[in-house]
């Protein structure tokens, strides 16, 4: 039973339910989140924070959030936007 449970958890870890990202918002800004398949995380573009997904479960306690450094941003345009926001 324990091995079966572990296997199920492992399966859960492989796939986060993407439809869930449509109902979730950033716990701090209440703005929509973007699912990043590359980093397996939920990104709050509004405040530049990413929230991890562990074993298929999104971790959206504010303290779980990690500030995204400018060079971590996937697109050059997004990085420029973030940088200009930080300088205001």
């Amino acid at each position: 039973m324990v091995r079966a449970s572990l296997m199920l958890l492992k399966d859960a870890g492989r796939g986060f339910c993407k439809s869930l990202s449509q109902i979730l918002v950033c716990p701090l800004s209440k703005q929509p989140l973007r699912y990043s398949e590359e980093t397996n995380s939920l990104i709050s573009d509004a405040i530049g924070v990413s929230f991890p997904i562990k074993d298929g479960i999104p971790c959206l306690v504010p303290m779980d959030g990690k500030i995204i450094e400018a060079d971590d941003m996937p697109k050059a345009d997004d990085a420029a936007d973030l940088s200009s926001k930080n300088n205001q």
Partner: protein
Amino acid sequence: MALCIPLPSCRFRHRPVRSSLERQELFGRIAPVYDNLNDLLSLGQHRIWKRMTVSWTGAKVGDCALDLCCGSGDLAFLLSEKVGSNGKVTGLDFSKEQLSIASCRQGLAPNACYNNIEWVEGDALQLPFSDGYFDAITMGYGLRNVVDKERAMQEMFRVLKPGSRVSVLDFNKSTQPFTNLIQEWMIDNVVVPVATGYGLAKEYEYLKSSIKEFLTGKELERLALQVGFSNARHYEISGGLMGNLVATR
């Protein structure tokens, strides 16, 4: 850079369990035996109370429901049966350990309709949901444990659809001295000794102080109306030992 607020070093020894982090750790420690202890300590009655809690929400087929402080998922599974495969249930808790158990139970259950449940690790005081999303919200033995009850009620109000209900089950902080006496006696002479057998004496001693710090039924009704609910009623169940707040947005 981690979004971390440095916390003072709190060691849970003989002091009341005050901070959110301490409570989170407490629920993490009791997670492996939480379900068994619930059954043992309530002689299985908690299952009946939880069915009542779900009924009071008015949740129906196709609804989107939320179970806050879902723990190992009891209320989420009951909501799942109510809303059916066309509905959706979200179970939110701040304990990774409790959510792991909930997710495991979901995977092991024979009933395919439990596939309509998603688990989220989150904070009941800062919900990661947009305004007016849910048709029904439950909270079982959670409100007493949050550090800011008004804030929790405000968040429930915010994410609830107008006209929908929240149903909050918890210990009743009775205004009847005799009921309080029975409740305290049971905690001292039944709950804590049984929990001691599981090595969790300190964790369950927390129960008594948390009930003392909780709100009475009338105070809960007042709080719900204060944060904007149009209607609020607190029902005492199980001889006044437990209570269930039902509030309509």
